[in-house]
């Protein structure tokens, strides 16, 4: 039985070097960084070294990085934290219709709590139009949150342009960069964003760790109350081993980013061509030119996505439709709906996400078994008469 993993955008295996660094942190430098004694001192030094390392790789200051339990918490902290801290100035927030649920549902929660939220539409490639975006800004707008790379389609948003518009309007700008870190070059000071979320387990680091860049001077209300960890912005003993693991992972993915991107770009181009040559009525959601090579989102007209996933899994290939966080629900992807993808196509969408251990042979095998699966599902579909 084959075992082919094409779901790197859901999560990644922990790199061996990362696991090694974490092992040391667990077994040797295990102190609590808040403790006064030498165990604590050593842990704190290790943690801050990791923080500085990440800061230099992301182009910010170490004091501006705050560790959280993951991307979801970082997004919640950014949205709710800024919304509540700035509510005297205004109660209007702008985001897009294609955000990850961590942002989308936080924004919906704020909308239910009396904030006014604008959900911007996107074009057929999944991009927010900066001019439309500019027009949505109001005097009472306090925060804009637009993701850097979409987790379902890989579409890259024009973050720098939007951050600049916000800066001149005096509005804070947050970006969820969970799917972008390690895949596209990020220099925070160059980008001009005020807040940026990231996660460990999407970059061959451990699960349960992530963080939020908060520009110096940005006021934020904490989600958790407790000790004075993370300068009172995030109470709770720091998950040091995971922090060290994430820093090691970031260093690693950054160092091989260019090489890996060109390798994966070749693979995904080959894969798309191969699939479209073998199977008719397959369309690409988003475009490879405006996206990352790690994500290929294809719609197989008239074949239901869930059944494709199960059929591939039975043949040893792991993929997903949309994001792992929404699987099991029958609704069409909110991302594809916002991109105005036809329902019949959206229901047959599959995200193939490539990563470090993806080989040409993996994709060849996948492309060899897909035609039969799609044929069978289409033959049972009342909606398909291609």
């Amino acid at each position, binding site marked *: 039985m084959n075992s082919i993993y094409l779901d790197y955008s859901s999560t990644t295996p922990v790199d061996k070097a990362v696991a090694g660094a974490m092992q040391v942190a667990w077994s040797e430098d295990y102190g609590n960084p808040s403790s006064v004694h030498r165990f604590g001192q050593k842990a704190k030094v290790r943690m801050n070294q990791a923080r500085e390392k990440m800061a230099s790789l992301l182009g910010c200051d170490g004091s501006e990085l705050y560790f959280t339990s993951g991307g979801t918490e970082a997004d919640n902290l950014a949205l709710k934290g800024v919304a509540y801290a700035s509510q005297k100035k205004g109660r209007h927030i702008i985001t897009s219709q294609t955000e990850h649920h961590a942002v989308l549902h936080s924004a919906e929660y704020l909308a239910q709590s009396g904030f006014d939220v604008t959900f911007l539409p996107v074009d057929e490639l999944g991009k927010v139009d900066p001019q439309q975006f500019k027009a949505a800004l109001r005097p009472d707008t306090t925060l804009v949150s637009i993701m850097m790379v979409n987790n379902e389609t890989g579409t890259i948003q024009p973050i720098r342009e939007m951050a600049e518009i916000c800066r001149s309007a005096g509005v804070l700008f947050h970006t969820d960069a969970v799917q972008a870190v390690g895949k596209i070059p990020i220099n925070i000071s160059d980008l001009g964003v005020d807040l940026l979320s990231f996660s460990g387990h999407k970059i061959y680091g451990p699960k349960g760790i992530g963080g939020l860049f908060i520009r110096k001077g940005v006021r934020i209300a904490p989600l958790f109350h407790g000790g004075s960890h993370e300068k009172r912005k995030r109470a709770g003993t720091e998950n040091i081993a995971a922090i060290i693991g994430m820093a090691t992972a970031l260093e690693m993915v950054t160092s091989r980013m260019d090489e890996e991107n060109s390798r994966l770009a070749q693979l995904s181009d080959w894969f798309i061509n191969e699939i479209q040559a073998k199977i008719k009525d397959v369309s690409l959601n988003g475009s490879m030119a405006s996206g990352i090579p790690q994500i290929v989102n294809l719609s197989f007209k008239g074949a239901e996505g869930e059944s494709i996933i199960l*059929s591939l899994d039975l043949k040893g290939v792991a993929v997903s439709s949309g994001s792992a966080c929404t699987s099991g629900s029958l609704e069409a992807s909110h991302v594809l709906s916002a991109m105005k993808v036809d329902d019949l196509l959206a229901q047959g969408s599959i995200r193939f996400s490539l990563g470090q251990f993806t080989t040409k042979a993996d994709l060849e095998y996948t492309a060899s078994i897909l035609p039969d699966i799609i044929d069978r599902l289409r033959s*049972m579909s009342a909606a398909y008469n291609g």
Partner: protein
Amino acid sequence: MNMESKNKKVLVALSGGVDSSVALLLLREQGYEVIGATMKLWDFSEVGGDVHKDGRCCSMESVNDAREVCDRVGVPHYLLNFAELFKKTVIGNFVSEYLNGRTPNPCVLCNTEIKWEQFLAQADKLDCDYIATGHYARTGYDATSGRSFLKRGIDGTKDQSYALWGIRQAALAKTLFPLGEITKKETRRLAEEAGLKTANTPESMEICFVADDNYGRFIREWSGQEIPEGDIVNQEGEAVGKHKGIPFYTVGQRKGLGISHRTPLYVTEIDKENNRIVIGEKEAVKKSELNMSRVNWVSAKPTDEPFSGLVQIRYLHKSCPAQIIPQSADRFKIIFETAQLAITPGQTAVIFDGDTVLAGGIID
């Protein structure tokens, strides 16, 4: 490995209980390629009820138990979300039947419309040859009649063929019941021997989506309607008490009528039109005839000719001899040899020949 099972793929419906777990285990041992799947039919946040009195089916724990059994047996497990459909068909019917003064059997509808429709369709999509469940029933092909048959399981105390009469021939031909030939006791023993986590799961008796067993609460919440009170009348039509709303009564019911009388009183009729509950003594709740509709011919070839058989009218009813008179393609008139207590509209009537399910339908 026998020849029948060689290279045959089966999708097994797993509830997270002991029966379906052992069904999976047995098929695996027989050499089938087995895939486990649990149907998500409803959610506590929607059906309500006392969260502390958690029913097992469809709870997160039962899904996790099913997943763990599959991991242990070494087969894949998938969660299939049929909640929208279940809500529309099974729960919708359950509520409307009660509101109409009838007493539905949602398990029958779930079997017919969900398991042997949607689940089977999913199995087709996964290129499976069969589906299997942990029901205590038997099926196979009868060369003489050229039909797939359905029989009671050999464990008379656990027989579930009564709730399976709605399965159509094409679906039955693709069905395996691995527990049909064993007893519940053996099932538990096999589960324990295999060290399955689900070996000691309790029997599920109530309707799964009414976890607190409070039908009144459920119907009130789900329908969102005011359910009017009305009169309880005797056989002569005289008001003798008040009822709480007709959905809360069922024909043959004796308890909870709130009327004292020297002999036991029963609900003999639910008069939806006049919003009345009719009560009477035991003799008045006995009838020797019923009409049934939505008939499905199972093991028996359809015929226009009257025939005799054993008819069962409730899950815990001992089937009784009767004459079956086909009225049209899907309607029967049944005449029992002796009068039966509490023939309940909305319930299922199943016609047997010995252990074999000939046909079934819904009592008018």
